């Protein structure tokens, strides 16, 4: 009888401790969860997107159309469909490798890590932004800074600091994530001196391919006035199964 009481008591204490611990854990995870949720909202298990990229410069602008496939964190592929001169150019990300197929010279170039922070096809995005080699979930430590309103929407303001082991050029990234739809609406990128370098705005929330996503993403480099790059999602198909083999250097040369 006494024994049972002791067991009961200790079980009770255990439950209490576990409850406390899980509460503690939840507090810690929440910022990370928000980022993860937002990331998954935009990505899905797989996606096939039709996008338009517009490069805006003070004296000119240029429009490109592309098709993009992605599967989880590890695989993505982008093919240029217009302008005609660059049609068929393909970028492939496979786990940690990035390849670039250029049909006019019949060369498949593996981008070295040193090129990851360089401009991608003349846009204000870097090669790294494009292939998302760094994961916004696992390569950063997240901290919830509070709530702010962006575009009339309540947002979580989250500070993301890269883990020392991650190959990320930013000192920190601050993101604003809509607290209702869990969509990232704004991000600020700071360099190692703590200077604001880029601002990324996402807007025009639309339901495409059965999901609510931000269909327009704009990148503004802070030090270059009048420069920006706009990505518009014209169409996305989510969660259509794609074989891993699709994301191969051989397939890059064949896809249409």
């Amino acid at each position: 009888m006494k024994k049972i009481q002791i067991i009961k008591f200790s079980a009770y204490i255990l439950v209490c401790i576990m409850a406390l611990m899980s509460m503690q854990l939840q507090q810690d995870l929440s910022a990370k969860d928000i980022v993860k949720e937002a990331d998954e909202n935009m990505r899905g298990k797989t996606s096939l997107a039709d996008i338009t990229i517009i490069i805006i410069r003070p004296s000119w602008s240029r429009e490109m159309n592309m098709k993009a496939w992605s599967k989880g964190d590890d695989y993505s592929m982008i093919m240029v469909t217009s302008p005609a001169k660059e049609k068929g150019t393909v970028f492939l990300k496979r786990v940690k490798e990035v390849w670039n197929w250029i049909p006019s010279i019949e060369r498949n170039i593996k981008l070295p890590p040193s090129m990851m922070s360089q401009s991608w096809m003349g846009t204000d995005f870097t090669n790294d932004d494009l292939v998302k080699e760094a994961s916004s979930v696992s390569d950063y430590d997240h901290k919830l800074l509070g709530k702010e309103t962006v575009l009339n929407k309540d947002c979580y303001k989250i500070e993301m600091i890269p883990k020392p082991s991650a190959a990320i050029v930013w000192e920190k990234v601050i993101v604003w994530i809509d607290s209702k739809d869990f969509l990232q609406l704004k991000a600020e990128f700071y360099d190692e001196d703590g200077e604001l370098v880029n601002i990324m705005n996402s807007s025009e929330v639309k339901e495409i391919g059965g999901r609510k996503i931000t269909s327009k993403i704009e990148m503004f480099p802070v030090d270059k006035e009048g420069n920006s790059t706009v990505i518009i999602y014209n169409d996305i198909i989510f969660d259509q199964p794609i074989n891993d083999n699709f994301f191969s250097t051989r397939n890059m040369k064949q896809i249409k």
Partner: protein
Amino acid sequence: MLLKLAWLNIWRNKRRTIITATSVFFAVLLAIIFRSLTEGVYDNMIHNVVSYSSGYLQVHQKGYWDEQSIDNTFKEDEQLYQELLKNPNVTHIMPRLQTFALASYGEKTRGVLVLGIDPVKEKAVNNLHEKITDGQYIETVNDNAVVLGEGLASQLKLKVNDTLVLLGQGYHASSAAAKFRVKGLMKLGAIELNNSVVYMPLQQSQYMHGAEGRLTSVSVMLDKTTDLEKLKQSIQESIDPEKYEVMTWKEMMPEMDQFIEADSTGHYIIIGVLYFVISFGLFGTLLMMIFERKHELGILIAIGMKKHLLAIILLLESAMISLIGCFTGVIAGFLVIKWFSAYPIHFTGELKEVYENYGIESIIYFSSHEKIFIVQTLIVLLLSILLAFYPGYKVMKLKPVEAINS
């Protein structure tokens, strides 16, 4: 009267006059040849370097020089060509599209300078076709082939008729990637160019960069003797200053200008020593003359000749001798330079190789700039007249009695 007296006086002792005049003659001749030689070497060096690189003057889109990107190109403009060629000092114009790219063959990749050129116009200026060591030169603007420096070819381990892959940044953020057949290899003097240059017909280059009908610059070649700054002014005025910018090679390659300036300083010191030697020679003959004629001068003063008139006669005498020397010196210098301009000295052997390694023709040119003749002659003339004051001074101090008795 005085002039006539002086004239007769100098021919009284023909030998002395001829010796003095000869020393002036050689002074003038040497100074002229020396200056002409150094100026000629510089002119030739500049001509050689600029004909491959920037041209004497370059017209480009305003702002290009500060940010040499393909986005700062301008549209080919026939009117601009006409305007430039209207100037009589302009001998050639070379439209170019100059970019940087990665060149790859097999496993090797190098950063290269891609020069889109008009092969015909370029050939006329710097004889590019003569530099070909293997294969052939590109003949027309739309020939689909490239010619590259020997050094670059050996780095890429590539031969004539291989396919070179070029990858670079195109106009307005487009990508520039293309394959070309290597039509020829050339040996260029400047090592840097030899190791990094790819010449391509202009239209091919424009197509590859998605910059149809656009140029980074128009290089302007001039007569060697043209006044650069003045011409720059006049060209600048004749074209749209809001759109175009004109730069001289001195602005584009300040290091070469500074090198020449530093090198010239050495030459100025040498020529200074030359003047020094010349004036002492002259002074010597004048001293001899006054010594020889002391007796005669003493008598002239004794019978009532005014001292200052006598001094003026002596001054006139030496001025006349100097003038004769200068005049003949200029004529001789002119002939010598004419001869060497027509038949320049070609180096041979080791010296030739040294020059060619620097990308400079192994030829000594003489500059026949009229400035040299005038300046050098004036300097020698001035020196001899300054020296002629000494006999005059001597005469003023002459004591007739002592002079007669000496």
